[in-house]
């Protein structure tokens, strides 16, 4: 049926952006996910942006309870979930008021008419009914009585009204699926696998879905169907993946590629918790997840596991990372390999827990007592987390030190098509533990190799018994030392170790010419918006190049040369200028900051506008 030739004209589009929004209880995240998968399966490039309400479920129908999911799907390569929306599905008045601002003029607006009753309108703060007072005239408004139609569709299946209404999101999906000419098959498969055990529910959702689809097909008011063809992505097998999921998978891969059991010490915190959730489900990959009593226990247990010889990882978000500060010092002092993952959220303090931000960069670099350096690398997109995790573990083990990995709520919860790698494509991570000494020779735990890294001797190895800790260590012997010169030497040595990482990472690559009027320098989540904006500028003939940093400490060796090859440097960040502060200090370059700190990612247009203001 999904393949039935449409009875209405189909207009071809290069790309489109759809947003489902409604009450947290309305299943909008599910609708979004299904639409995403379906579009991906159809070969579109997709980028998504789930927007959750504050943690606790707010009362039904209130603005605080509105949940949204935006999907940008295209027949060309895309990097962001889109600035404005072409089609908006609003399940209730609260969802309409809070989201209508993002619908482009002339955009399609699908609303559940039945929800626009007195109470609903009042909760949303509408004096008059927007569906009737003409205030929505600049949009293609379709008010559909979704509640009634859904109830009709599931009639006779013996569902309570409450249960029946829970199928509304499937009706809405069906309608949008028809609108964008998407197949129902993946969703039908999903219903089967998810509700298989509850035939009643499965049938109801199926009916609602098809009812929505047929409604589109039949009702005159909706007179055109749209089609967005497949995109030319790099050939290969693809799947859709979320940031935290990709991080978990990257860690699994790193463990297997280095022949290590993985230990994750974590304490739940939004938006990092899913890393713990995913990994708890992968025990059969020889992963031990420890939900600690707090973040300090999480990282100190992680240090214990690192000493034990495991691939030790801890993951949290801003406030939790702050709590780990003292223990990170111990990790640096003991020179043990481990990963500290910060899925950044809005701060300071508890801040905006469910919103995204990049304001923990300076904390990552300097948030510890004493001279306490650590490599810092950042993921740029959901799929990139998979590779960043492996790279971080490679560096940690080659240089024997903790590595800080930064992502953010936008990357963590967002999703994108991900080309499934051949396991054989993935570089092995070689780790060598010193063998036991039975000849009575003295073991020197702080002896160093050419990279300055010390041996990773693990308990259980005869003859390598040694003690480590947080007091300053004598180089080579690792004994406690109060010697002034040794302390200075060790401080420089710990710094040099981190600096040496620069010899071991790829040179910085550019998207655009090697010289020009403007270099857009970005890190982390803004990657997509910057890439898109720079491409736009380049198409407009501007001499603009994009430089996206994965390695923030140390920087790639060629970064300085790159920076000096451009007349201006623009650094867009979701903070008040943190990378900018490092770049200015290190290279004395008058970098220009574009700062946004609204708990939301950059829109492409914000960056385009800034670029245009800098290069005519």
């Amino acid at each position, binding site marked *: 049926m999904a393949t039935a030739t449409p009875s209405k004209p189909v207009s071809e589009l290069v790309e489109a952006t759809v947003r489902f929004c409604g009450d947290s209880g309305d299943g909008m995240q599910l609708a979004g996910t299904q639409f995403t998968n379906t579009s991906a399966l159809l070969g579109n490039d997709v980028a998504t942006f789930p927007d959750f309400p504050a943690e606790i479920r707010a009362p039904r129908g209130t603005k605080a309870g509105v949940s949204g999911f935006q999907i940008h799907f295209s027949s060309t390569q895309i990097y962001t979930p889109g600035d404005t929306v072409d089609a908006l599905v609003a399940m209730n008045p609260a969802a309409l008021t809070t989201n209508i601002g993002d619908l482009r003029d002339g955009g399609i607006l699908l609303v559940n008419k039945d929800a626009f009753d007195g109470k609903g309108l009042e909760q949303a703060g509408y004096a008059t009914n927007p569906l009737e007072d003409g205030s929505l005239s600049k949009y293609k408004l379709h008010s559909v009585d979704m509640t009634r139609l859904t109830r009709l569709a599931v009639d006779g299946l013996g569902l309570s009204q409450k249960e029946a209404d829970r199928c509304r999101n499937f009706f809405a999906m069906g309608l949008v699926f028809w609108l964008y000419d998407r197949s129902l098959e993946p969703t039908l498969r999903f219903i089967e696998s998810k509700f298989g055990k509850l035939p009643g529910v499965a049938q109801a959702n199926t009916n609602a879905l098809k009812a929505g689809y047929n409604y589109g097909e039949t009702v005159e008011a909706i007179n055109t169907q749209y089609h967005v063809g497949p995109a030319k992505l790099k050939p290969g097998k693809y799947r859709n993946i979320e940031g935290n999921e990709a991080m978990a998978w990257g860690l699994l891969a790193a463990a297997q590629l280095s022949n290590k059991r993985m230990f994750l010490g974590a304490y739940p915190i939004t938006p990092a918790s899913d890393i713990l959730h995913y990994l708890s489900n992968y025990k059969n990959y020889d992963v031990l997840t420890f939900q600690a009593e707090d973040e300090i*226990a999480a990282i100190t247990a992680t240090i214990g596991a690192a000493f034990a010889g495991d691939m030790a990882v801890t993951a949290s978000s801003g406030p939790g990372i702050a709590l780990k500060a003292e223990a990170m010092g111990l990790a640096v002092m003991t020179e043990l390999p481990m990963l500290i993952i910060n899925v950044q959220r809005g701060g300071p303090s508890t801040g905006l827990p469910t919103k995204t931000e990049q304001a923990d960069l300076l904390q990552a670099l300097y948030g510890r007592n004493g001279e306490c350096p650590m490599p810092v690398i950042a993921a740029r997109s959901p799929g990139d987390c998979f590779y960043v995790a492996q790279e971080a573990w490679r560096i940690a083990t080659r240089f024997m030190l903790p590595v800080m990995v930064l992502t953010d709520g936008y990357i963590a919860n967002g999703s994108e098509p991900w080309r499934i790698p051949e396991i054989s494509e993935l570089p092995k991570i070689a780790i060598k533990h010193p063998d036991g000494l039975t000849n009575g020779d003295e073991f020197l735990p702080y002896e160093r190799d050419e990279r300055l890294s010390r041996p990773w001797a693990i308990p259980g190895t005869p003859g390598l018994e040694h003690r480590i800790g947080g007091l300053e260590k004598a180089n080579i012997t690792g004994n406690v030392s109060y010697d002034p010169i040794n302390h200075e030497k060790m401080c420089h040595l710990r710094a040099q170790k981190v600096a040496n990482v620069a010899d071991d990472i790829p040179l910085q690559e550019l998207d655009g010419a090697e010289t020009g009027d403007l270099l857009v320098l970005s890190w982390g989540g803004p990657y997509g918006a910057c890439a898109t904006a720079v491409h736009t500028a380049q198409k407009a003939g501007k001499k603009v190049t994009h430089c996206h940093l994965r390695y923030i400490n140390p920087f790639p060796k060629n970064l300085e040369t790159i920076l000096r090859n451009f007349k201006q440097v623009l650094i867009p960040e979701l903070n008040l200028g943190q990378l900018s502060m490092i770049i200015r200090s290190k290279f004395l370059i008058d970098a220009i900051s574009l700062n946004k700190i609204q708990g939301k990612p950059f829109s492409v247009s914000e960056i385009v506008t800034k670029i245009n203001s800098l290069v005519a």
Partner: protein
Amino acid sequence: MSIESTLPILKPADFASDQDVRWCPGCGDYSILAQMKKVLPTLGVPREKIVFISGIGCSSRFPYYMNTYGMHSIHGRAPAVATGLKSSRPDLQVWVITGDGDGLSIGGNHLMHAIRRNVDLNIVLFNNRIYGLTKGQYSPTSPLGKKTKSTPMGAIDNPLHPLSIAIGCEATFVARSIDTNIKHLGDVLKRAAEHRGTSFVEVYQNCNVFNDGAWEYAKDRDTKEDTTLELEHGKPLIFGKERKKGIRLHGLDPEVVELGKGISEDDLLFHDEKATEPSLAYLLSRMRYEDGFPEPIGVFRAVDLPRYDQMANAQIEQAIKDKGKGDLEALFNSGDTWTVS
């Protein structure tokens, strides 16, 4: 914890590291160190399989003096470090050395959670009722009214009782000994090492520089038989120089009674370290010298219950049995996928 069969016979000296011991002359820590070195060779665990984890404090310098693996971690966090270590490596014998400040002040929460998880650790808390390393502030076990550098007019915080807390946190092994009671201390450490699950041992330790004599009543040769009571499983609670005094239960309140005068051993409270419910152990932990009771030493409680480290690893094995060893290829290709050519 796997015990190897053929081992080189080790002597206490084999457990001494090459670092010279840095405690004040006369510190009670020396004696605890000596007993530990005596006990370890008797356990049949190879030296390289033993790890000492400590926090910060005079007591926490302990690992430096043991020729085993060790970590002098950060203040209060040793139980958490050890939990990670032991969970990853159940084959190791892991000791936690802590103090009344390290373990009960900044580290109280980690101690509490390690105990309730019953991680197979041997935790030894050196209780000198003072902060030694920082030169003499009161600790959570300092008595009310205690005058110290930070309490010139006397402490106003009710002291915590390490064993009462441990029992309040579902402890499976709880014991107490005294630094100078060499033989007893050795036996208790051995029992702790042999217990599977978290063994929590409080040791009365004298800080002769900042809190000298804190435990005098329990150490003094003339008074100790009357101020302390050696617990023995299945035996009645008897104490005193002439072993003529005992503890009888009056409702839920213990009382000191004279044997003879119509009171026989059978009237006394009998010790049962294996009692499933910890009420007896708790009651014993409340008996205090200042209230006219002898303070029990020895093993208060020793019951065998599942351990976190063991179960965590069992779940992994189970998961592998159920789902098969994790296969990345399969994982990546699970669910909806599509091909771009």
